[in-house]
Structure formats: C-alpha cells, structure tokens
C-alpha cells in the first residue's frame, strides 16, 4: 500500500511537470501583459509537431530537434504577438478584445493543424530509449523510468532558467519594468514592443519544449493535443498565483498529483471532477493563488 502511494505520487509528479511546463509560459505572458494567451496550448502542439518532423523526417538527434522546435515556436509566438495582439494593444483595445483574439488564434492553430497534418494521431519516434531503474524497483518496489526523470528535471531546469532571466538579466529587468508600469517604462526608454516580443518568444519556446517532451513521454501527438493540457496548465497557473513563476510550477505539480490521487484512491471516473473541485476549494480559500498576494502584482 505504501509503495503504491509512492508510485502514484511519482506518477502525479510526472504528469504535473507536463502541466507545469505549459503553465510557465502562460504565467509569464500574463505577468508581463496581463493577457491570458489561450493559444499557448496550441503553440505547445505546434512544438510537438516541429519536434516530430525534425526527428522523423529530418532524422535529427534529440538536441537539434529540441532547438528546432523551440525556434519554430519562438517565431510563431512572435508573429502571433505581432499580427494578432499588437494591433489591439496599439489601439488601446479593451482587455476582453485581446482575450477573444487569443481564443480565435487558438482555434486557428488547431484547425490549421487539422488541415496540414490531418487529425490522425501520430506515433512520436522513440528517440530516448526507455530505461527502467531496476535497482530502485528491487529495493522499494517503485518503478521510475528515465523519461519521467527527464521530464521532471527539464521542467525544473527551465523554471530556474526563467527565474534567472526575469530576475537577473537586463532584458528581465525590462520585462519587470514593462509589467510594473508600461508607460513609465516607455518614457524611460525601454523598447516596449521588443520586450513584449521577447516575452512571447520565451513563452513559446517553453511550450515547444513541453510539446516535444510530451511527445516522447506519451508517444502520441495530434492537432488537438494542446486543448486539455492547455486548460489544465492555465488552471495550474491560476492555482499557483498567475504571473508568479514558481507558482506555475507548484500549481502544476499539485494539479497532477491531485488528479492521480483522486483516480487512484477515490474513483477514476471522477478524476477531473474531483481534482477541479479541490482546486476550486483552494481558490476559495486563497483567491489570488497559493503564491499570490492580493494587492501587488509582479512577474
């Protein structure tokens, strides 16, 4: 029983780190722009396909494929910002207009995916051979495989990297300034458009990394793969306190573990229902999220 609980928690952390990877991008764009980029889940899907083609068609290795997917998505994210969100921002459109546009972009990407790549799921090339750690299994009865470790460590590494960029670099300082007060930042000579473009590029690169990792992890990609994880990652970001980078991470883990534990110890048919009920309760107690403060908003 104890081993089963531990096994389930490991399962939950692996699932949660997928949500966390996507949630990081959501939270960052929100932190800077106060925009919920609903297309984020679909950028993640495009990332998975870019990785798929790099590995399956170009026969590239894992690292070049990763970089390729991230570059493609960075360009995609920047062009979405340039052509869909910036015109609205320059016209001082109400926030709801940007939100609606984001939903539109999301549907556009999904349907373009269906047209170009057909809705048929594809098997992702198994580029990282599976390795189950026998020693751990023999000693503790828990099965851990290398893919789980990769996905968990990559998401933690990316979170740390993001924290570093935002808090320690010059562009990070500009991002925080834009987030804090866009007009003042502009008057101080910060190139707002550039900073926002950069934010989108970074956010989309994170999504691409998530897409490729998930492709490897689950071995199945399709054009609608971003929909559910996108929603769940968004919830994870809100749960952790949207706009706060470690919050997205923690929110993702909590959501993943909650889902797994509900389905393991209550009933698998109520997985999403109960997991989301727990989230509602957490938000009722702490409306601004676990790491959120009610008054101050920060990156």
């Amino acid at each position: 029983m104890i081993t089963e609980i531990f096994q389930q928690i490991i399962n939950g952390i692996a699932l949660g780190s997928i949500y966390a990877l996507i949630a990081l991008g959501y939270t960052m764009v929100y932190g800077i722009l106060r925009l919920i980029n609903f297309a984020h889940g679909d950028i993640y899907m495009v990332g998975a396909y870019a990785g798929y083609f790099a590995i399956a068609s170009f026969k590239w290795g894992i690292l070049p494929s990763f970089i390729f997917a991230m570059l493609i998505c960075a360009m995609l994210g920047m062009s979405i910002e340039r052509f869909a969100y910036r015109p609205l921002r320059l016209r001082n459109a109400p926030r709801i207009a940007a939100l609606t546009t984001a939903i539109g972009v999301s549907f556009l990407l999904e349907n373009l995916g269906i047209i170009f790549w057909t809705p048929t799921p594809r098997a992702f090339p198994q580029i990282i051979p599976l390795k189950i750690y026998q020693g751990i299994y023999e000693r503790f009865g828990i099965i851990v495989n290398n893919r789980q470790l990769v996905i968990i460590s990559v998401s933690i590494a990316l979170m740390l990297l993001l924290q570093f960029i935002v808090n320690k670099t010059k562009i990070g300082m500009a991002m925080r300034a834009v987030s804090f007060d866009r007009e003042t930042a502009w008057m101080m000579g910060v190139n707002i458009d550039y900073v926002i473009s950069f934010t989108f590029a970074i956010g989309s690169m994170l999504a691409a990394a998530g897409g490729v990792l998930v492709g490897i992890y689950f071995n199945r990609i399709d054009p609608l793969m971003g929909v559910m994880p996108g929603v769940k990652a968004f919830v994870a970001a809100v749960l952790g306190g949207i706009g706060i980078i470690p919050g997205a991470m923690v929110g993702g883990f909590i959501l993943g573990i909650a889902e797994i534990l509900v389905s393991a110890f209550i009933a698998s048919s109520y997985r999403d229902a109960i997991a989301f009920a727990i989230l509602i309760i957490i938000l009722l107690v702490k409306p601004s999220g676990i790491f959120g403060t009610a008054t101050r908003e920060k990156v």
Partner: protein
Amino acid sequence: MKRVFLMLLVVSLIISGVTSVYGAETIKVGLITPLTGPIATFGQSVEKGVRMAVDEINAKGGVLGMKIELFVEDNQAKAEESANIARKFIEQNKVVAILGPVISSNTLAAAPIAQQSKVPLLSPTATNPRVTQVGNYIFRACFVDDFQGTVMARFARTGLGKRLNTAAILYEKTSDYSIGLAKYFKETFISLGGKIVAEESFSSGDQDFSAQLTKIKGKNPDVLYVPSYYDTAGLIIKQARELGINVPILGGDGFDSPQLAELAGKENLKNCYFSGHFFAGSKSPEVRTFVANYKKRYNAVPDMLAALGYDAVYMLADAIKRAGKVDRDAIRDALANTKNLKLVTGTITLDENRNPKKSAVIVGFDSNGNQVYKTTVNPPKK
C-alpha cells in the same frame, strides 16, 4: 444583371434536372466513414473494402442492371458529423441505403435519422448491441459486443494454457463500445468462476493512465482486459508494460490497426490478444480470393475493417437483388431476410434483431508486432 442571374438559374435548373434523370439509372449508396481523426485507419480500411466491392459489382454489370453510385463522406469519428452526413445523404443525395458509420457511438448518432426517414442503414462494423435496437431499418454486418466480450472472457479462462482466475478491466467511460465490451466480459468471466479484481475507467482523450494502471498492478490480476480503440489501447499497453504489468492484455476488434504496434511499441505487444472478425491468413477460399484481389489493388494486406466494409456492400447488393427493385422499403425487407450468405468474414444469417450470427477469430502478435492467428470461436447455437 438580373437577366444574367435568371439565365444562370434556368441553366442550372436544366442541368440539375438532367442529372437527376440520369441519376435514376444508378443505385445511390452513401458511405459514412472516419477518413481522418483518431481512428482514421478504421475508416480508410472500410472505405477501401467498400470501393473494391462496389467496383467489382459494377464491373460485372451492377445490380438489377444498374450500377452502384457511391458517395463517401468523412465524419472524423464525430457523432454530430455522422448525423449531419446521414441527413445530407438522405435529403441531398437521395441515397437508397447508407453504409456506415464505422464505430458504434457514431452509428448511434446517425441511425435515428435513417430510421425516421426510413432509409436502410447498414453499419459494417458497429458492434454495440444498442445500434440495431434503434429501429427496424438499422442493420450491421458484424457480430455484437456481447458475443465479442463473451469470447474474450472464455479465452481468458481457458484459451491461454493455464486458467486465469483474476481479471482487471480498464475501459473508456465515454464510449458505448468500450462500456459494452467491459460489461459482457465481466459477466462471462464471473459466470465462468473468475473474479474481477479491478475495474477502472478513463475519459476519451486521456493520455496518462499511470494512476489506473498502478492501482491495477497493486491488485495483481492474471489478465487485463482493455476494450478500447487502438489509439488509446496502444498508449495503455505501452504504459502498462512500462509499469511492469506483464500479464496478458486482451482487447476487442478495436485493436485491429497497424498503428497499434507503432503506438504501443512492438515489443510490448507480446502476450496481447484481441477478438476479431476475420484473419487475412485464413485458408478459406473466400478469404484467399479477397486477400489476393485486395493486395493486387492496394498493395497491402486487408485488415478486418476492410473485409467487413467489403462484405457490407455484398450484403446490400444481395438484398437489392432479392428485393427486385431499388426501393428503400423493399431493400429493408430483403436485408432483414438475409440468410446463409457466404461472405469473406463468414456466413451471415441475420437474427430477428437484425444482428448477424457469425464466428470470431482470436488474434495475437509475433515479436515484430505482426498479427498471428490464434483460434476461431463459433457463435453459440441457440
């Protein structure tokens, strides 16, 4: 400007009048099938089988001296699309019969429309019992889930060398097909003295089954039953094996796709079996001719969906021939009286509920993920 429009209108009326007169010379049949979407290989196979049968029949002069005219629409495995296409076929294309949809939940969406308009609908492959209960215009060319579930439960108890006493079931709670198979498997397995130690479910679109599988593993079953389509079954088999569940994994005809091996990984298909309608390596003369012709035409080995699609066309053609006229009601009556019709997937006789009684094959896999014949199970004689 107005005159141009009027003239265009007149011309188009004349043209449409001409085509509809010409159209009366053919037997219009619509095929609803998922050519894209999560289970696209099913739909594509059915389409290939159907087209091949239609071309064969037309090459031999058609039915009652008329050629069969086939309309094909892709429903993407969506229920609402299936209903829309059924409506379109009936109202716009004026078909005399509908073939498809392929999976049960889609067929359950299209069937009420066909029933209301009194158009015979013949699904080659929908195995859920509720499908033909929609009404007396709804038919199928395959066996029913209760038979399929029963066959696999019996196979689990007796067919694998040693008796397997405990079973776990992992089914999709949003799929009529999956729920049905799980139910009949469970009933038979228990009635044969076995015990179900775990019954877990998941929702359509789920990718992570680690929680359910870990729980199942904790219960230590002798066999795992996964009544699901290949797109999810592949993931489940992979994740089960990765979690160290090495017991036999059984499934239904939803496993029958080349993509299963890609998604699950060839090595993981060891010790997996499913119940199917047809096996391409069979020695029967009908199967051998069919497989040879199919290979010649498509350069591929037909799967059971192709065979069922092929058979559905012959079933319909046989009914039209016996009806003696291209009339929806007459075709329905003739279809209902289908008896001892020798087809690729077996000899078909419809019972009073318009369900065929026919045999099932049990198929396993070799180390390269290729299907291998295991055994044939005949329907119970009542």
